[in-house]
């Protein structure tokens, strides 16, 4: 059973809701069938910490079969000579608004923030995703094969995220990563307090923010209690009914008497009203939905770790963690990832303490989880350059980050934060054949993805611009033909 189905089952059993809502909006993505693919003679960064020079990568049935030197060519395999080129796992961006804040940024496509109430855990980002956003194609050209689409940060609790494969589809279900758990977007700091405070609504302060998260989760606890009670009563009812049924069979002679009695005092309990907001939060507290939290300042991250402890949920990653370097040790100890830009800073007060060594300093402690994220339709095209800048600044203070370590910021670590490390993020046997062939060391301003594969299928080929994916929106627009 995949994670999603398992989650759905947990949801139905725990909440006792009818099986008809078992899996809402299921993924329709199916990996295409592809012949074996052998990439030969590349410098391979496995994502699991290794660098292999002049190595081969074999993909069979869309999955990594093996990585090593001089692998035999399977019959019917397609081969690619990658000498002088580099191979990495497909890149993963856990903070994207592609599709929900699409290009062109017109009001008709402005679907990223349900900024009508500070807690909107009932909304799901996937219902805003416009699959025709041309930003998906340009991200693919930058080597991005998996992305998490989040609601914006206007709200304390902005709604569910969705994890997508970067493939073309008419509807988002065709992009939805099979088996990926949902995330919940939450936001610290200036954005929620500004958005609501300006309208003289709560929250207008950071203390108002924290009161807002706590009340929402306290309500969800009550909600869960009422469902637990209902489930208990339902179980008792069913038990009684079964017992009564077997008693009936025995006492079939006294049928008329018993029937009257049974009908009177043991009708089924009424279920509580479903509340989509609280349902999502209840699932968060059960560990079925993963919390991704927009939080710049170190002190606010500390506060949120305490809030999470109070309500028994886990924050898997702080995003835009501009001050993560101030609490790098605690984040590593708590097993919380920090998703960072290389050098964005200064555009608002909570971003004032940004430094260019953040990624490397957060990466330094044992058991750390440093991630490069974009939050940008531009930055997502160059995640490799973001990492490269951090490598250079780290070196200046004596931290050596070799390419085989830095690549984890773009692959394994984001996969971990999504709970997908058993499926993507490294080139280990059995994982998805998501990979990028770079024209050179990817940690360079001159590096370009030559080819990008998703589940072993060629998704982008720089040598064949005519065949590159183009959204419906790009068709027939003058001046978008590209190419020198």
């Amino acid at each position: 059973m995949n994670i999603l189905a398992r989650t759905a089952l947990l949801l139905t059993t725990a909440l006792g809701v009818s099986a008809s809502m078992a899996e809402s909006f299921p993924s329709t993505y199916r990996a295409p069938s592809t012949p074996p693919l052998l990439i030969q003679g590349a410098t391979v960064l496995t994502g699991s910490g290794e660098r292999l020079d002049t190595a081969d990568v074999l993909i069979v049935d869309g999955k990594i079969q093996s990585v090593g030197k001089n692998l035999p060519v399977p019959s019917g395999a397609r081969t690619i000579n990658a000498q002088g080129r580099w191979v990495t796992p497909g890149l993963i961006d856990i903070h994207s608004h592609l599709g929900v804040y699409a290009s062109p940024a017109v009001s008709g496509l402005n679907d990223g923030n349900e900024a009508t109430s500070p807690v909107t855990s009932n909304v799901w980002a996937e219902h805003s995703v416009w699959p025709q956003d041309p930003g998906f194609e340009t991200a693919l050209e930058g080597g991005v094969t998996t992305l998490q689409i989040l609601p914006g940060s206007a709200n304390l609790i902005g709604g569910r995220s969705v994890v997508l494969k970067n493939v073309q589809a008419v509807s988002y279900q065709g992009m939805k990563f099979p088996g990926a758990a949902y995330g919940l977007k939450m936001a610290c700091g200036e954005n929620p307090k500004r958005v609501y405070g300006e309208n003289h609504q709560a929250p207008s302060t950071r203390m108002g923010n924290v009161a807002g998260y706590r009340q929402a989760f306290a309500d969800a606890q009550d909600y869960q209690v009422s469902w637990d009670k209902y489930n208990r009563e339902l179980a008792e009812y069913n038990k009684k009914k079964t017992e009564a049924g077997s008693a009936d069979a025995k006492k079939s002679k006294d049928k008329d008497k018993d029937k009257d009695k049974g009908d009177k005092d043991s009708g089924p309990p009424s279920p509580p009203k479903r509340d989509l907001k609280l349902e999502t939060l209840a699932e968060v507290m059960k560990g079925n939905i993963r919390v991704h939290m927009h939080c710049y300042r170190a002190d606010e991250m500390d506060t949120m770790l305490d809030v999470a402890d109070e309500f028994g949920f886990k924050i898997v990653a702080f995003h835009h963690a501009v001050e993560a370097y101030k609490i790098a040790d605690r984040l590593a100890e708590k097993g919380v990832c920090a998703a960072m830009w290389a050098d964005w800073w200064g555009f608002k007060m909570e971003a004032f303490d940004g430094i260019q060594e953040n990624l490397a300093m957060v990466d330094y402690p044992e058991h750390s989880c440093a991630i490069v994220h974009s939050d940008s339709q531009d930055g997502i095209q160059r995640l490799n350059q973001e990492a490269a800048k951090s490598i250079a600044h780290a070196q200046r203070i004596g931290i050596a980050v070799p390419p085989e370590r830095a690549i984890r910021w773009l692959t394994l670590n984001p996969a971990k934060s999504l709970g997908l490390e058993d499926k993507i993020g490294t080139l280990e046997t059995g994982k998805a054949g998501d990979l990028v062939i770079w024209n050179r060391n990817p940690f360079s301003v001159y590096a370009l993805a030559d080819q990008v594969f998703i589940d072993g299928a060629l998704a982008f080929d720089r040598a064949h611009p005519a065949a590159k994916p183009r959204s419906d929106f790009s068709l027939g627009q003058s001046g978008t033909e590209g190419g020198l």
Partner: protein
Amino acid sequence: MKAMQSSLLSAWAGIALMLSHGAMAQEILIRGATVHTASAKGVLKNTDVLIRDGAVAAVGSALPASAGATVIDAKGRDLTPGMFGGLNTLGIDEIGAESSTVDSSLNLKSPSWDQQWRPEFDASTSFNPHSVIVPVTRMEGITWAVLNPASGDSIMAGQGAAVTLDGRYDAVLRGTHALFVQMGNGGARLAGGTRAAEFMLLEQAIRESRAQTAPGSGALLHTAGRETLARYLAGGRVVFQVDRAADILQVVAFAQRNGMKAIIAGGDEAWEVAKELAKADVPVILDPIDDLPADFDHLGSTLDNAARLHKAGVRIAFSGPETPQARLTRQLAGNAVAHGLPQEAALAAITSAPAEMFGLGATRGHIAVGQVADLVLWSGDPLEVTTLADQVWIAGSAVEMRSRQTELRDRYWDKIKAHQAR
């Protein structure tokens, strides 16, 4: 033009005194560098550069050092002119989201049918050399930038000028003033809802500036505004923020009709009218990584923009969108190279080309005898993201390679190191 410049000199620029730094009298000899001259001389290997009194005194091999000169062994490292930080609000906006720290835009809140245009507004007068963004930016090799007033409540944003980033108060560089006008859909919102009205209002302002009678009711310009605009109509530098190809051609024709020296800023679709821009000799300051249809003015955005413009003979310079990230113009240039722009043209686009666009070609943007010694010694290829500035000099003074960010770094890195001890 001449009238404008002399007036600018006294009115805005002040006199750029070169006395504030005692070190300037000293000689510095940089030995054995790979010198990127950003000029017709190209790249000179194993070359010495002598700095005296804040200027480049000699470029050659085996230059003699006088007694007391500071000698730096470049060991073949790359030496470039100090780089251009783009059009931005460095030192006039400290934190974009905090209005108390923002001085780049004028909002008089006049109704749209009775706009008060203030070309006399000069954003460079609010420049604060103590901005923490200044050291953050210059230690990355950026030695100058052009202050760009943001359009507030009219398309006439006002004037800006180039500033040096060595921390002096009199940072505005003489003869660099420019007028900034917001066109395209960004301007339409400030011009009654249509881009056509941008030209209508500009024509009205031009008539007013030439009128002999006192400004009446409904006029766009005050007397000071008339005088300012009139100077720009006599060959002044006017930066038009515009992206759509059709709008660019309208702007070029408009500027030609009215005696303005146009610079296109933005120019995402400029490649579509590259021939016309080359013919009119109108330069473009662009962000070469813009490749998405951000809105309906940017449908033709492509990573090939810079390479195509260059190939067509259009002068180009690079500018990114974010003031705190002015340090990243170098990364923009590297990306342009990855997408077909020759290396030397990319370096020129962040050194000599913008210097020439803003009237600084004779003093900045190149490495040549007589140029102000704004120089950067790099750890590697100057356009590569893994390269850092090893040392920056502005007007011959070595810049302290520290900033508020390195202070924060050192404070917390020491803690992490102590805790992890591995």
